[in-house]
């Protein structure tokens, strides 16, 4: 198991150390069972596995939206469980970007407003916020649609806005949950290409997916089953 990224960048952004997540009190469900892994800067990782294999739980933990029952999650070396909510939230906002299957854009805000939401409460002036959000929208090719609301955008476009929102904070890692799951094949391809374009030596991409085509386009593929990692392999890109 080679944990050093192929690009040579080796800063560990996220790490799970023997992490378990157990749900329920009376009837306990072990959604994640003693998992250890690291995500380093510059990596493009896919996590695959059947429903119930624990990949969503893992994504929630990687994004410190949830905390483990046992084990330690470190974000840039900081133990997430040690932090109070406000600090953990700030760390999440700074280090991690999220893209979801259902886009989760805020319906009453424009594309630009949605991207700007990620930049709130960071001491930026509204001009700086707008500038950076605009930059991110242009990066995903939607600069001209910045004043459109989500209902005025197609699914693919909405997902691109969500991606702009995830990258505008310049996070170390973008965590994506089935980002192509709600899209037709042409839009899915487009979005996948954007993810590839977004990968830089200091930014990792981590996609949870059912789609083998998406999974195989990654450089590293983690397969899960019953809350455990069953394989973690580097792929050679054709």
């Amino acid at each position, binding site marked *: 198991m080679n944990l050093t990224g192929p690009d040579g960048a080796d800063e560990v952004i996220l790490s799970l150390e023997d992490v378990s997540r157990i749900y329920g009190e009376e009837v306990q469900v072990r959604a994640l069972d003693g998992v250890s892994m690291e995500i380093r800067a510059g990596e493009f990782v896919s996590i695959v596995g059947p429903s119930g294999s624990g990949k969503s739980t893992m994504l*929630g933990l990687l994004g410190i939206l*949830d905390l483990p029952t046992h084990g330690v999650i470190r974000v840039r070396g900081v133990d997430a469980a040690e932090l109070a909510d406000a600090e953990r939230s700030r760390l999440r*906002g700074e280090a991690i970007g999220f893209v979801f*299957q259902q886009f*989760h854009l805020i319906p*009453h805000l424009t594309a630009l407003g949605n991207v700007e*939401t990620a930049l*709130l*409460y960071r001491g930026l002036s509204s001009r700086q916020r707008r500038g950076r959000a605009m930059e991110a929208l242009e990066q995903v090719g939607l600069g001209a649609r910045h004043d459109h609301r989500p209902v005025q955008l197609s699914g693919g476009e909405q997902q691109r806005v969500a991606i702009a929102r995830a990258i505008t904070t310049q996070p170390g890692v973008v965590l994506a949950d089935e980002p192509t799951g709600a899209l037709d094949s042409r839009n899915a391809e487009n979005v996948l290409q954007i993810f590839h374009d977004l990968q830089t030596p200091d930014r990792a991409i981590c996609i949870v997916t*059912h789609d083998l085509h998406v999974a195989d386009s990654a450089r590293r593929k983690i397969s899960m089953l019953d809350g455990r990692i069953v394989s973690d392999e580097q792929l050679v890109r054709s």
Partner: protein
Amino acid sequence: MRRVREVIGVAVSGLTSRKVRTLLIMLGPVLGVAAIVAAIGINESSKGHLKAKLQELGTDLIVVNASAGFGFGQDPVIEAAAVGRVGRLPDVVAVTGTRQMSDIVTVPFAGAEDYYRAFPVPVIATGLDLPSTLEVPLVSGRFLNEFDESSGARVAVIGRDLADEYGYLRGESRTIELNGLQYGVVGVLDYVLLEPSMDSAVFLTFTAAMEDWGLDDPDPSRLYVRAPVNTRLVAQEIPTVVSLGGPDGANASVPTDLLDAQSQVDESLNNLTKMMGGLALIVGGVGIANVMSISVIQRSSEIGIRRALGHSRSTIAIQFLFEALVVGVLGGIVGAGVGAGVVWGVAEQRGYTMVLSVVGLAGWALVSVGVAVVAGLYPSTKAARLEPLETLRLG
């Protein structure tokens, strides 16, 4: 500071994106504040009006009415000699007796007989000091004087409303017909606020009343007494002074006390309206809590994504609290405005001077803010406690 601006921005955009709902939840605080402000404002304005009226009338006038003694079948009177006794009381500066005559049809001008037979004007025999006792000036001419009284001349003074109906011109020599007898009009008395019936009355001397209308003696049935100091004490003494312990009684009252009592009545009505307004505010608060709780559920995905973007629980709570705050502030301002408008309208309609405390307006608007914030506490705590993983429905 920037953070506060950002939170306000997020709260306002959350509210403006659901305008109808925002307006509906604002209705509670608006109605509550408007009701309270209107209740207080109308009460203050009408009290101010009463106070002004009290000031105008003076609070030192006593009205004494004859009350029935042992005699039946005749109107109770106060014997004429009692007028002098009351006048000699210390602290009494003026006293005048009057007696309203009956069965006299007054016709101010030819052709109006039917009307004035149906609606007879009061004919009052009076002492000569009525204007100075009531502190009411004459609009024109003079009041009845000693010569009129000693000679029993057929002269009259008329009230101002009657003069208007009569078409009386200033300084004009006119007569007025009482049961066919012509009386010369020598003067017009100004409005008597305390006795509005005098505004359309005809005033005669007691001598004329005895000579022409069969009055047996110059006994008044009512006394007007002016006592600038110890008014109430004087009012208490008067019945004894009038009756001298005999059977002919009298009741003395200070009419302005009635106005005072009237303002007390308004006070209790006012409290009731305030309570209703308070109730409306509380119901409004419950409405805010209710609608916002539902809103938190509807917006759970928004809350989840904000958490994922790095907004902390407390930021989310503050965002929702600010939405409640904005509802409270706007509701308070609009409510105060509507209430002030109602007070203005009522004051305008009733001829009051509008009395409205700006501090009071701001105070009640603040109460609305307080209610809204308290109402927002529960939904915002609920929003902060939402688990992002549960709302984001990861695949």
